[in-house]
């Protein structure tokens, strides 16, 4: 019989990992989900956030300063990528994919040049061991999970309840019409990239004390982010958050009963079935969102 403490640990760990996953994917949910721009540098921007955090701690600056610097610098870089490269292609999908893939490689090599080939790590600024009944958990990781969830909900509210969301959608769906209505679409795209870059840069810095910092860490972040965004329903910030948390929880619970790799395969298979079923449902008008 399954010990209760194992179930408790799986739930806590699943919720924490899921929340962090959703937070990392949030920027992609805006750029890809709402603005329909396939930004393959998303994972590398995450890596840069973590790298900035490492550099600042190495320079004897407090970790908290990285939480300010990383979103500013990475957000600025995302804006520059949009202004100087993607905007010139009119965000046309084919060219955007090629351009961002090239940038992905450049940023990855930049990471290799600065971090070196070996993994790096920094100490959490605080890390009390939290005792639950029957198991213990990292205090900083728990904090990062809760912070991620709060940040996700705030961004969701911000995008859905303010003018930002409709403006981003309008600029993506019919740029000519939006501009004829007086919307400066270039500025809207700039805001979208700034927001997405800042969020993923922040996520990189936030997770850097409990994940190893490595020049290749962006690959996994990109893959997971795409899975979460697609699973949550493209264009739905709330869906992305739910998908991230749900996926984390499902994977954690499945690992209690199944071999780890089988658990992962099962989780992703269920996610795929859900996406296909939702697509079929929406075609038949059964499933609306």
């Amino acid at each position, binding site marked *: 019989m399954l*010990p209760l403490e*194992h179930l408790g*640990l*799986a739930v806590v*760990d*699943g919720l924490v*990992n899921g929340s962090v996953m959703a937070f990392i994917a949030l920027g992609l949910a805006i750029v890809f989900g709402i603005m329909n721009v396939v930004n393959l540098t998303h994972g590398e921007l995450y890596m840069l956030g973590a790298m900035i955090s490492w550099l600042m701690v190495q320079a004897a600056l407090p970790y908290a300063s990285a939480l300010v610097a990383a979103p500013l610098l990475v957000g600025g870089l995302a804006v520059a990528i949009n202004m100087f490269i993607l905007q010139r292609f009119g965000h046309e999908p084919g060219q955007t994919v090629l351009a961002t893939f090239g940038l992905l490689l450049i940023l990855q*090599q930049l990471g*290799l040049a600065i971090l*070196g*080939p*070996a*993994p*790096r*790590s*920094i*100490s959490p600024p605080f890390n009390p*061991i939290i005792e639950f009944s029957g*198991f*213990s*958990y*990292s205090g900083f990781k728990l904090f990062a999970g809760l912070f991620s969830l709060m940040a996700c909900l705030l961004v969701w509210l911000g995008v859905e309840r303010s003018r930002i969301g409709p403006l981003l959608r309008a600029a993506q769906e019919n740029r000519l019409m939006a501009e004829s209505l007086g919307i400066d679409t270039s500025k809207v795209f700039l805001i979208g990239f700034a927001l997405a870059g800042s969020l993923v840069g922040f996520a990189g810095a936030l997770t850097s*004390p*409990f*994940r*190893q910092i*490595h*020049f*290749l*860490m962006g690959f*996994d972040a990109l*893959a997971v982010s795409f899975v979460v965004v697609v699973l949550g329903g493209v264009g739905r910030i709330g869906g992305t958050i739910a998908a991230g948390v749900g996926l984390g929880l499902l*994977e*954690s619970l499945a*690992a*209690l009963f199944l*071999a*780890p*790799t089988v658990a*992962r395969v099962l989780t992703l298979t269920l996610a795929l079935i859900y996406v296909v079923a939702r697509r079929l449902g929406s075609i038949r008008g059964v499933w609306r969102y």
Partner: protein
Amino acid sequence: MDRRRALSSLLKTGIIAAGAAGLGAVAGYLSGSSIGAQPPQGREPGVKPIKIGFQVHRTGIGAPYGFWYERVANAAVSYINKIGGIAGRPVELIAEDDETSPAKGAQVVERLVLAHNVDFILGALFSDVVLASGPRAGELKRPYFAVSEGTHVPFGKLNRWCFQPGITDVPGQVTAVAKWIFENLGKRVAMIYPDYAFGHDHRDALTKAAERYGARIVEKIPIPPGETSFTKYFTRIPRDIDVLYHVMVGDVLTFIRELGVYLGRDRPELFGFIDSIEAVPLSAPGLEYLEGTYFWEAFPRYADGYDTPYARFYRESVGVDESGADKSDPSRVSAFSHMFGVWETLFVIKEAVEQSGYSEPTRSDYEAFIKTLESMDWFNEGLWHPQGDKRFNGKLHQSFGHQFISVVRNGRLVVVHRTEIEDSFYEHPNDYTKQPLF
């Protein structure tokens, strides 16, 4: 070659030459001088060089190893050229990045043979790259020397043109250390390993060794590749085990941190393979939990772990300090337990070329080279084999050697045991010598 003739005349001349050339070689290497085209001292310039192609993981996931493999290859070639080259000919190293990619690895092999017409290929570390490259080397009829630890060479997954003489393989390593683990740490073992070929080699070898020594692997926990969070798998670790055996699960700093939180102080003995923390400083935040735990090392990271004149010369030649870090950048820790394989492999090529009379990339010369290499059975410890003597099995194309077990004490690795070569022997029916060469 008889092992009992301990340090052969070959090595004696090597030591004398080293005295004269050692510092120059190191200085030349550290100053970044071009070493490939440098003719051996006392030889006529313009003598046709022996060209050795080098498939190197400069980028991709293998980059931490690739950096050091390339440094060691350059240092070894520099030293070889200082002591007269190979059969009196200078050695030219032609290195190409394989991006730690199997597809690119096979392309690199093609380019090295077809564009550069290299005589031999110094191969890769990562198993998937070796598995993709070895068959192409066989098709192109060019000797390919893996420095990989994988079982693909000894278990017959490649071909007669592929060798692994400079580094021991996973089954040999595990077989050697398993006896010590079971006798000293306990017989109830759980293991955590990556869920791909490298991890499966560990799983299979340790399971076999457990059967032999009356131990029990009570839980096997394979970790999916690319995992970045491990706590969810720790609930599978039984509480009543003596030893938790762990190897290369990927995001090692996260793994150790989370393991520390989960197990706390009331933990079983931990035995790991250095692969997990190769090129990672033990002072890295999060690794404090490793204090008092054990690791396999092929060649001790800290100089006092195996302090011989040969090991010192090698360490000096490749620019590594007493604690296993780069002399010019102490924050950069070396891949010390793997990179010596590059050094030793290059000297095996030298020995085999000189004994076989190899001269040109022709059928007859390659036949003589390969048969000579297959007939070798010992590589004596010395400047050319600083990690220790090795038994070479010509049928398996694989070397067997000594292994080290170290404990983390005061934040450094301290050697507690060195295994005998015989401890690593295992049976396998593979026999490459039965395969036709052409």
